[in-house]
């Protein structure tokens, strides 16, 4: 992992079209500005982890086929 030290107002560029700016630091929090093209998805890691965790739970669904039959069907 590349580790850099930056001050508020300073930026990092990734490739040609992604810029990350350190906007402000306040106690233990850092505000970051990200400029990236639409095709690049920028997400908090928590969202990934949430979906990963949900996928694992879904994969462990106890398979009691009856519950699937009890569910309502849209007419």
């Amino acid at each position: 992992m590349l580790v850099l030290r930056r001050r508020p107002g300073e930026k990092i560029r990734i490739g040609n079209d992604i810029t990350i700016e350190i906007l402000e630091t306040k106690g233990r929090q850092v505000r970051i500005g990200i400029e990236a093209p639409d095709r690049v998805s920028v997400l908090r890691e928590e969202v990934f982890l949430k979906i990963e965790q949900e996928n694992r739970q879904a994969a462990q669904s106890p398979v009691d086929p009856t519950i699937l039959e009890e569910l309502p069907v849209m007419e």
Partner: protein
Amino acid sequence: MKIETTRFGIIDVESDKIITFPQGILGFPHSKRFILFPHGDKSIFWWLQSLDDEDLAFVTISPSAICTENYSFKIPDDVQEMLKIKKPEQVEVLLLVTISDKPQKSVTVNLLGPIVINIETRLGAQLILDPVKYPVKYPITPAKNAPLKEAV
């Protein structure tokens, strides 16, 4: 080709029915090949069974089978490219279903991370939508004829 599965025993898979997820499904990056088949003749549920991991199978449902108002989203360009999507008719959306019996019996669908499949190229991916708009657990009530009007 014959594939061994934990839940369904040995199943016969036609190679042109295989759906490939180039990036896998979040949490299961090594499972790339899946097959989709209905839970039963009249069921609204489909199984998404991994061909790379015999234990791995998801229950899925089409969003059109549940009452979710305004469930629509744009497929990002990079995903359209990866799945070789040229027109909307090629796209099928599935939601992963989570069934748990603890602490109580519940059935929820994941609206935050839908599965999109190009039914022509048979390529698939899991999207990540806006967590402010879509819950990861959207309940579908296990009761007959119950109106489903939970807010998303």
